[in-house]
């Protein structure tokens, strides 16, 4: 067996990994102190006050001490709140992707991962990423719940059918790392694994350019936009989609929603649920007509129109 198998911690290959490990080791240390303390007391007492054979002495009864009780109630409470705060800080970071993150779409299905890069490259059970650039994975599933887990990045998120979830990280170390499906999804759950390749940006660019030339997702989406006749309405009697992404949309019932990926997805698949103010429900529902990949490409296209600002929209951070 090679010594590599005796690791205790996976490689740290993302910007958050170090922080997670730090908290982990602090908590381990804290736990070790407590366990050694309590275990030590127990062992010491058990030996020191062991009953001698034959005799049945009865020690002085104790009745507890309020002071002690308060100490060992309040101290753990304070520590616990501290630990909560620390864990929460990391979590909040893990939950809020930076706005400039590169979006990669990940679709799970029994039992493989399909990945689509914005530049159009598609992969199965492999994910190539440039070093040092924040990446946001937009996850969905075509059937049951899966979960995209990269131990070296210390992060994971469930991929749910019917909606998008997101997960982000910044790879900080060139290399090849496992990713796993970590939500049980049926017979070949344990085969739903693959590799993340973190590459120098130059190498990444080479990789993107390699093989058969790919149509960027947005371009593919533009083509679909025409094939599915979206353009017959949008641009004429439908709302313009330029600048829509990440703007605040006023709906016909007066509420304002933030146009994130999920909003675009729903607007395409079930437009009647949320209707932009000033319009009626003429747009057909594309649920069951478009595949998950086509939806992704359409969304990529709509996002590419984001640069042209809509007059009424105000930019907000996600």
């Amino acid at each position: 067996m090679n010594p590599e198998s005796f690791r205790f911690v996976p490689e740290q290959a993302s910007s958050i990994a170090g922080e997670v490990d730090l908290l982990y080791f602090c908590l381990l240390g804290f736990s070790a102190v407590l366990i050694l303390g309590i275990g030590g007391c127990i062992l010491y007492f058990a030996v020191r006050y062991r009953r001698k054979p034959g005799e049945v002495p009865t020690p002085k009864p104790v009745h507890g001490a309020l002071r002690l009780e308060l100490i060992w109630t309040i101290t753990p409470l304070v520590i616990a709140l501290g630990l909560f705060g620390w864990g929460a800080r990391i979590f909040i970071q893990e939950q809020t992707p930076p706005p400039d993150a590169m979006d990669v779409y990940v679709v799970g299905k029994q039992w493989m991962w399909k990945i689509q890069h914005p530049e159009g490259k598609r992969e199965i059970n492999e994910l190539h990423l440039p070093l040092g650039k924040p990446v946001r994975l937009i996850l969905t599933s075509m059937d049951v719940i899966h979960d995209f887990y990269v131990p070296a990045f210390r992060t994971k998120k469930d991929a749910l059918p019917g909606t998008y979830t997101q997960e982000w990280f910044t790879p900080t170390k060139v290399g090849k790392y496992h990713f796993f499906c970590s939500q049980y999804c049926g017979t070949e759950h344990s085969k739903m694994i693959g590799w993340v390749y973190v590459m120098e940006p130059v190498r990444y660019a080479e990789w993107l350019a390699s093989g058969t030339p790919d149509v960027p997702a947005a371009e593919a989406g533009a083509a679909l936009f025409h094939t599915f006749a979206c353009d017959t309405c949008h641009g004429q009697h439908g709302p313009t989609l330029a600048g829509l992404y990440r703007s605040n949309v006023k709906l016909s019932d007066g509420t304002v929603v933030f146009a994130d990926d999920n909003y675009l997805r729903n607007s395409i698949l079930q437009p009647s649920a949320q209707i932009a103010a000033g319009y009626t429900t003429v747009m057909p529902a594309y649920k069951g007509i478009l595949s998950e990949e086509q939806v992704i490409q359409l969304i990529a296209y709509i996002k590419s129109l984001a640069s042209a600002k809509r007059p009424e929209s105000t930019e907000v951070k996600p």
Partner: protein
Amino acid sequence: MADSGAVLHEQFDDLAQQHSAVTLGMWAFLATEVLFFGGLILSYVVYRHAYPHEFQFASHQLSVKLGTLNTAVLLCSSLSMALAVHAAQFGARKRLVFFLIVTMALGATFLTIKGFEWRTDWVDGFVPGSHFSFVSHTPRVDARKVELFFCLYFVMTGLHGLHMLIGIALLGFLTVHASRGKYSSGNFAPIELTGLYWHFVDIVWIFLFPLLYLIGNHAA
């Protein structure tokens, strides 16, 4: 107080202890029941929050008239159940049997009316599954989510109906025993307990009615 008839089971010391034990047991059981329906109520709240328009729309497909009528029927049955317990407390056998039968009859009426409603839903294609044939022509109403409402509707009313059926069966059992003079002013715990159960089922409906039928603004 224990004048006659009541059997003291071996594990108890006296009838008072026995009686307080069975009543407490029944209340504990009802607490269980609250959470049994509670799971459905949570689901309802979650989906109504997510799909307010569809829920309002779907709710308007139900007949408020029949729903109101049914609520009234159940409230009356609760009254007659209370009167049955009252009669039992006095050992008034005829009155007890009479009110038990009235309660049962009202319960059966409720189920019959409910049955008619369900039939209408079936005919109108609101029963979820392959039979569901509703197509939405209304803005902001997605037929799929109307189906979701009806899923909840059928499970909730179905489960409530099942409880009613069990209640009616219990009442039938009590009626037979009561008419044979099994109960007396010192021995009517089964009637009291069934009464608690019956009222509880009534309370469930008191909540289901506004949740399912009265989602606002029927005039508009």
